[in-house]
C-alpha cells in the first residue's frame, strides 16, 4: 500500500500550472497576479490495544490565485490543480475583482523585495516507509507505553509521514518552489485510580526521519506523563508564581507573535499597538527569528508574498524591536515588509538559561503548568485566563499533581514579570523555548 511521490515531477507540474495561471491572468486583463499551489502526500497509521485501527493514504492538493485590477482584488481557490480548474479559478478571481472596493494598499510586495537566492534549506527528507513498517513502529510505541505498570487503557499510537511541494509565483516574474517533509509519532495513554481516569501523551515530530525519537522512548514517556497525573488535587486560590513547561511557554511566545502581527496591528486589535521601542520583557531577554536555519521546522527562503526572509529581532534586550509584517500589513502601517507573510519562521530566544531545578528553587511555592485548556486569551486587551493542569511546588520541589484550576493575568504584565527561562528547550515546533517562570499570577482553584 505504498504510493510513490515524485517530488521533482510534482514541482515541475505545479510550476507550469502557476506560470500558466499568471499568463492567463495577464491576458485577461489583470494588472498583477499571484498564485500559490501545493501538493502533499503521506501515510498515516493508527493502532490501539495492539491492533491496527486505521490506515490512511492522503494526497492533498491546493491552488489559490489572487488577481489585482487597479487597486481591486479578487481571489479564488480549489483543491484541484488540473488545467481546467486552474483556468476557472483565474476567471472567477477576475470576476470577483470587478465587485470588490478600491484598496490603495492592495497589490504585490515591491519587486525589489523578491527573494533572489533560493538556497536548499534541507527540509525535504522523504522516508521510504512501507505501511507494514509504519504499523510496526506505531505498535512498538504503544506497546512500550502499555508495558509500564499502571497504564490501564490506551487512546492509541499513530505514525504519520508525508512530503510535499509548495510553489508560489507572481507577476513580478518571481517563481519559488520548496519541498518539505514531516514525520511524526505520537502515543496517548490512560491510567486510572479510585479518583478516576487520566490521560496524557507524548510525540516526536521531525523533518528528517533519522531524528525521530525511538518508538519505545515516545511510548514510555507518554506512560510516565500519564501516570504522574494520577491523584491530582485542586490547588488553593491565590496569587503565586507559575512555571510554564516548554510546550506551554511556546504558547506564550505564540500569543506575543499574534499581537505583533501586522494584521492585528492595523485592525487595532492588539494590546501591543503603538508599543514599538518600548520595554516589554526584562532586559536580559531577546527574541529572534531564524528563517534560514538549515533543517528546521519552519525554514523557508521566501515568505507567502515571495519576499526574501531574513533574521529578524522582535525583542531586543527586552524592548519591542520589530513588528511582524507582510507586504500588505506593512503598507497599511506605513512600514516595510519584514518577510513575515504567513507568520514567523523558527523563533528562538536569547536569554541566560537555568536548569529546571534552579527555576523550581527560584519559584519556591507555586504551580508548574504542563497543560492549558480553552481559548481564554484576549489579544485585544492581553487579558489571559486559562484552564490548567500541572504540579504543586513547595520549597522548590514538586509535591503532587494539580488539576481543575485556572491561571489568570494580563499578557503585558506577564511578559514584564518573566523571571527566568529554562534550558529544557523543546525543539519540536517552529518556536524553540525552555520553561518560563512568571511571577505573580492569579490561581483559581478550591
Amino acid at each position, binding site marked *: 500500500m505504498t504510493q510513490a511521490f515524485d517530488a521533482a515531477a510534482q514541482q515541475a507540474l505545479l510550476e507550469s500550472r502557476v506560470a500558466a495561471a499568471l499568463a492567463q491572468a495577464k491576458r485577461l486583463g489583470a494588472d498583477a497576479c499571484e498564485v500559490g499551489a501545493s501538493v502533499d502526500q503521506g501515510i498515516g497509521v493508527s493502532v490501539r490495544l495492539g491492533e491496527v485501527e486505521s490506515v490512511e493514504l*492522503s494526497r492533498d492538493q491546493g491552488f489559490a490565485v489572487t488577481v489585482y485590477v487597479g487597486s481591486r482584488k479578487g481571489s479564488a481557490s480549489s483543491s484541484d490543480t488540473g488545467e481546467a480548474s486552474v483556468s476557472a479559478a483565474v476567471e472567477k478571481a477576475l470576476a470577483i475583482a470587478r465587485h*470588490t472596493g478600491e484598496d490603495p494598499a492592495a497589490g504585490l510586495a515591491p519587486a525589489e523585495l523578491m527573494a533572489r537566492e533560493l538556497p536548499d534549506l534541507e527540509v525535504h527528507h522523504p522516508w521510504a516507509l512501507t505501511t507494514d513498517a509504519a504499523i510496526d513502529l506505531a505498535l512498538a510505541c504503544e506497546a512500550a507505553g502499555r508495558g509500564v505498570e499502571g497504564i490501564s487503557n490506551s487512546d492509541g499510537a499513530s505514525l504519520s509521514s508525508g512530503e510535499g511541494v509548495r510553489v508560489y509565483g507572481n507577476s513580478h516574474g518571481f517563481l519559488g518552489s520548496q519541498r518539505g517533509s514531516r514525520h511524526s509519532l505520537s502515543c496517548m495513554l490512560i491510567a486510572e485510580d479510585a479518583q478516576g481516569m487520566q490521560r496524557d501523551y507524548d510525540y516526536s515530530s521531525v523533518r528528517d526521519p533519522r531524528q525521530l525519537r525511538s518508538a519505545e522512548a515516545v511510548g514510555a514517556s507518554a506512560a510516565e506523563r500519564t501516570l504522574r497525573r494520577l491523584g491530582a488535587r485542586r490547588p488553593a486560590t491565590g496569587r503565586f508564581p507559575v512555571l510554564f513547561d516548554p510546550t506551554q511557554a511556546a504558547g506564550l511566545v505564540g500569543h506575543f507573535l499574534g499581537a505583533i502581527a501586522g494584521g492585528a496591528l492595523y485592525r487595532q486589535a492588539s494590546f501591543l499597538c503603538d508599543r514599538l521601542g518600548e520595554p516589554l520583557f526584562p532586559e536580559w531577554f531577546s527574541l529572534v527569528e531564524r528563517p534560514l536555519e538549515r533543517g528546521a521546522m519552519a525554514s523557508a527562503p521566501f515568505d507567502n508574498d515571495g519576499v526574501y526572509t531574513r533574521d529578524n529581532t522582535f525583542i531586543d534586550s527586552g524592548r519591542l524591536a520589530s513588528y511582524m509584517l507582510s507586504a500588505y500589513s506593512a503598507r497599511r502601517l506605513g512600514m516595510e515588509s519584514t518577510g513575515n507573510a504567513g507568520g514567523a519562521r523558527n523563533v528562538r530566544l536569547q536569554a541566560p538559561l537555568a536548569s529546571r531545578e534552579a527555576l523550581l528553587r527560584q519559584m519556591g511555592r507555586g504551580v508548574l503548568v504542563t497543560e492549558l485548556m480553552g481559548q481564554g486569551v484576549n489579544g485585544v486587551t492581553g487579558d489571559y485566563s486559562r484552564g490548567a493542569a500541572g504540579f504543586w511546588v513547595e520549597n522548590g520541589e514538586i509535591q503532587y499533581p494539580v488539576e*481543575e484550576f*485556572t491561571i*489568570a493575568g494580563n499578557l503585558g504584565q506577564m511578559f514584564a514579570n518573566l523571571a527566568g527561562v529554562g534550558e529544557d528547550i523543546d525543539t519540536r515546533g517552529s518556536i524553540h523555548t525552555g520553561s518560563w517562570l512568571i511571577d505573580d499570577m*492569579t490561581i483559581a*482553584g478550591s
Partner: protein
Amino acid sequence: MNQPTSVPAADRALDTAVATLLAPTGLGLDDLDAGLGHALGAGIDFADLYLQRSWHESWVLEDGEVKEAGYNIDGGVGVRAMTGEKTGFAYSNQITAEALAETGQTASGIARSGARLSPQAVAVPSHPARYGAEDPLAGLSAEEKIALLKEADRIARAADPSVSQVSASLTGLYEVVLVRASDGTLAADLRPLVRFNVSVIAIRNGRRERGSAGGGGRYPMARLRDEGVAERYAKEAVRQALVNLEAVDAPAGQLPVVLGPGWPGILLHEAVGHGLEGDFNRKGSSAFAGRLGERVAAPGVTVVDDATLADRRGSLTIDDEGTRGQYTPLIEDGILTGYMQDKLNARLMGMAPTGNARRESYAHMPMPRMTNTYMLAGQDDPADILGSVKRGIYAVSFGGGQVDITSGKFVFSASEAYLIEDGRITAPVKGATLIGNGPEAMGRVSMIGHDLELDTGVGVCGKEGQGVPVGVGQPTLKLDELTVGGTQS
C-alpha cells in the same frame, strides 16, 4: 423556507447529486457499484464511498470597503474499507472510474485475506428534508451582498463614537453529498450553510475592547438580508464592546454561576456532549463510559442531540454515512440514556446508529459528532434564578471551550459576563475562563429556566483536527458552584 417533508425531496437530492457529482465525468450509479466492488476486497466486511462537491464564497468588509472576496471549489471521493475494528481509508480529488478503482483498492489493502462479500441491494429510504435544497449563494447578487456588509458598517459606526474598527463578513457554502455503502445505503443530501458576522473594536480613554456577533443557518443568503441581520449583529457587536469597556476584573475562586440562554449551551457541548460520543465510550476513554442508566446530572436535566431542527446550522437530513438525522436523548431527567453513534461504533457496541457520523470533507474519515445539542426547558423564571444568587457570576456569551473527555475536565471562556450581587446584576466583568468537571458540574445544576433558546448559528466543533458546524442551546441555568478564573483572589 424549509421544504415540506416528502419523498420527492430525497429523490430530487439524489438526482441533483448524480447530475453534479457523476455526470460531468460520464459516470452513473452503476459505476459506484463497481467502485464499491474494488473497496470490498478480500476480508472486507463493510465499505463506503462518500462523494462530495462544495462551493464556498466569502465577502469581507474592512475600513468601510469590501476589499476581500474569495471563492473556493472543492470536491472528490473518500473510500473506506473496514474489517472488524480496522479501517482503510483513501481519497481522491477526482471523481473518475480510475480514481474509484485506485482508492477502493488502496483502502481495501487493510485486509489481506478472507471472504469477498457482495454489496447489498440498494435501498433508497425517504428522509424528511430538514432544510431547503437551493444553492444558498445564488439568491443575492454581488451588489446586494456588498450592500449588506456596508449596511452593517454604517450602523455599527453610527451606534457609538468609540467604535474605531468594524469588520463584517458574509459567507456561504453549498455542498452536494452522495453516499453509497455496501450495506445497501444510497443517499444524497444538498446542504446550504450561510453566516453573517460583525466584529468591532471600541476605544475609549485609551482602553480597547472587542465585541462581535453573528449568526446563520442552512438557508439561502437572501434570508439573512430579509431578517435584517446586518442591523441586528452590528448593534449587538457594538453593545458587547461597550459593555466590555466598562468591565472590571473578574473574581477568582468558586462561585455560583448563572448561564444565560442560547450560546452558553457550549457548556453542554463540552461538559457532556463530547463525553457521550460513541467512539470514546467504546474505547472506555470517556468519563461517561459504562454509565448508561446511571445518574450523571441533577434531576430535571434533560439533554438531547437533535439533527432534525429546521434550517439549523447543525441540522442534517442525513449524516455522512447516509443515516437519517435524528433526535437523540442523551440525558433524561439526569439519567444517562444514550450515546451518539456512527455505524462502526454502533456495530461494535451492539447499538443502533443515531445519524451522528460526520466528517469535515471527503478527505477526512467520519466519526461520531454532535449536531445541535441542547438542554430542554425547565420551570424556573430567569429572574428568580438570578434573584437566588447572593454573590456570583452571570455569563451570557462565550468565546469557546474545550474538554478532556477522559478526566471530564472542561473549560469555557466568557466574552460577556457580569457580577451578581444580592440577586441583582451589577458590574460587567472581564472575560474569565470557567473550569469544572463534566459529571460534577451537571450534578450542581440547581435551577433551570423556562426560556430555552438556541444559539444564532455560529458554532464550529473541532475533533481530531476536523471542524464541523454545530448548534447549541439551553435555558437560563444555575450551577451552585463552578471555578471562576478571574484575577481578583
